[in-house]
């Protein structure tokens, strides 16, 4: 079989996203990489143009969530795998990077020890073996990607080979993240128990609260989001992406065409896990804490709701969904803290019943009606 002539990968990446998409991405990059950090750093706090601290924190957080939502959409919207355990990969990435941040505290902790405070508190004398090397940024980043990828490959190979699908898969992923949460709650596990990691001081030698660090972090997160969108767009518009969508619609038929769905699902599943982990690693320095609650079953369900609200099977939808739901959450948890879960449940029911394509689908319908009228 003669291979098709190969286009350079850069050209293929360029071609995968339409011009309007590149314009939108360019506008986003200009805003998030230049304008917002610039205004934050170089305008005085009293000025009407100044971007305050909390905007940077909330914005950074939401961009992390948006990466998770896009990853979720890859496996749910395109591959039809409803994972209710993506929070686990997010948390694993967060914990892996959190280890680096904990080591970065050095002797500035409460106990002024080389060991992280929680280990001193537990009366541990030495670092556990899996903490070795975590003071090096490169190794920590390797863990951020490697550990969730390994977990995803092992779990995915088991689940997809056994042809576990649909609601059974969803339930098992819920159980998986719940089990991990219980494990991380234990002090003996070596990740700070229910308090997790916090009180970070510095990152790559820079103070974590310094404006320059925060602006850089914000810009990095924006770049990661943009990169995620370009990458996932390339994946879903390739022939691989069309096979993936065919598996979603009729896995058996795909098998009778001669494709083995196992590898297709495993690749998408692992890629999604790694993207969630990167988002988790970026999230921890933004909010300054990581604890096992990120692995709670409810957190993972919330991820699915972002995607459902935004619109499955589109890439912009999940980004919008993550932003809308989380902005609503920020407001609700201040105004009516007890009512948030009910509101979230109501959104999910309403979207499922009346907006199967999410707000993006609604927007398109309204536009189409406007054009035809």
């Amino acid at each position, binding site marked *: *079989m*003669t291979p*098709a*002539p*190969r*286009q350079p*990968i850069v050209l*293929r990446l360029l071609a995968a996203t339409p011009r309007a998409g590149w314009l939108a991405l360019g506008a986003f990059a200009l805003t998030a990489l230049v304008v917002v950090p610039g205004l934050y750093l170089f305008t005085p706090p009293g000025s009407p143009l100044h971007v305050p601290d909390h905007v940077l924190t909330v914005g950074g957080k939401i961009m992390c969530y948006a990466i998770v939502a896009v990853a979720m959409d890859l496996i749910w919207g395109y591959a039809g795998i409803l994972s209710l355990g993506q929070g686990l990969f997010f948390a694993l990435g967060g914990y892996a990077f959190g280890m680096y941040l904990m080591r970065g505290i050095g002797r500035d902790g409460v106990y002024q020890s080389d060991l992280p405070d929680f280990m001193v508190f537990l009366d541990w004398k030495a670092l556990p073996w899996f903490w070795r090397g975590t003071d090096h940024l490169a190794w920590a980043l390797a863990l951020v990607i490697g550990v969730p990828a390994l977990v995803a490959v092992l779990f995915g190979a088991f689940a997809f080979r056994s042809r576990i699908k649909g609601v059974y898969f969803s339930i098992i992923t819920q159980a998986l993240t719940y089990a991990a949460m219980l494990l991380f709650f234990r002090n003996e596990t070596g990740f700070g128990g229910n308090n997790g990691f916090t009180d970070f001081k510095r990152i790559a030698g820079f103070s974590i609260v310094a404006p320059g660090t925060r602006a850089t972090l914000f810009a990095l997160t924006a770049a990661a989001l943009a990169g995620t969108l370009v990458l996932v767009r390339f*994946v879903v518009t*390739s*022939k*691989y992406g*069309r*096979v993936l*969508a*065919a598996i979603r*619609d*009729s896995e*058996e*038929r*795909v*098998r*009778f*065409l*001669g*494709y*083995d*769905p196992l*590898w*297709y699902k*495993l*690749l998408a599943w692992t890629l999604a896990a790694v993207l969630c982990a990167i988002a988790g690693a970026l999230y921890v320095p933004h909010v300054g804490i990581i604890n096992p609650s990120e692995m709670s079953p409810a957190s993972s369900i919330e991820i699915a709701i972002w995607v459902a609200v935004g619109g499955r099977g589109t890439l912009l939808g999940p980004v919008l969904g993550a932003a809308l739901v989380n902005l609503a959450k920020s407001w609700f948890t201040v105004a009516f803290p007890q009512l948030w879960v009910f509101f979230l449940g109501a959104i999910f029911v309403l979207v499922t019943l009346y907006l199967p394509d999410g707000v993006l689908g609604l927007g398109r319908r309204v536009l189409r009606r406007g054009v035809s009228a």
Partner: protein
Amino acid sequence: MTAAPSLAMAREPAPRVPALGAHGAADVSHRVILYLEDVTVTFDGFRALNALSLYVDAGELRCIIGPNGAGKTTMMDVITGKTRPDSGTAFFGQALDLTRLSEAEIAAAGIGRKFQKPTVFEHHTVFENLELALRADRRARRTLFATLDGAARDRIAEILELVRLSGEAGRLAGQLSHGQKQWLEIGMLLVQEPQLLLLDEPVAGMTDEETERTAELVVGLAKERSIVVVEHDLAFVARLGGKVTVLHEGAVLAEGKLDDVKADPRVVEVYLGR
């Protein structure tokens, strides 16, 4: 005595698993392309196939008829790897043991199957449906970077013409009529370029005109490959010609020309007479 081991050494061991994307894997040097021998399948005590033995020659067009529950679809399932037999053997050519291969491996080895209900990918366009079926490397890492070259586009255009869907290439397959979906599915089988084609009730729900065109197409296709058709419509079977096998209660009841088979009193009793 001394020569025997060296002979055995000299023979290349047959690869148990053909790589996905490997094609034309069946060795038909002994004329037969499909062997089913003593195949038994039971579901909760019900014998769907009862020591079924059936041989199909390379290049043959074979029709399988039989009342509901005779085991026709189960037989297809065994051939395509969807169902594993409790006992018996199933071989594709001389070397490929179908009872040990996965559905994907069997499809890649050159057995194409059209299901009773047309199953096309409704959210993909007609063109994309053919692109997915097109004979090409089936591995995930290859499809990620795959592009369609001119020859592949020509091939798809040719098949679109053949199944009369050229004007619908950009439409979603879900929007096609029932007959058009059947034809698209046949087109998907053709671009796979299988050596053995299994058609499960290909004219179910088709108009007379569509049935006639399908018969023409199938007869034309049989010139290049082996085809097994499962069908209820005896007029269609007669139109195809070729040998007919009657299944009953999971075993072969009669085999031969349609007219001879129709005259067989046992066949009349279980099937045609009712």
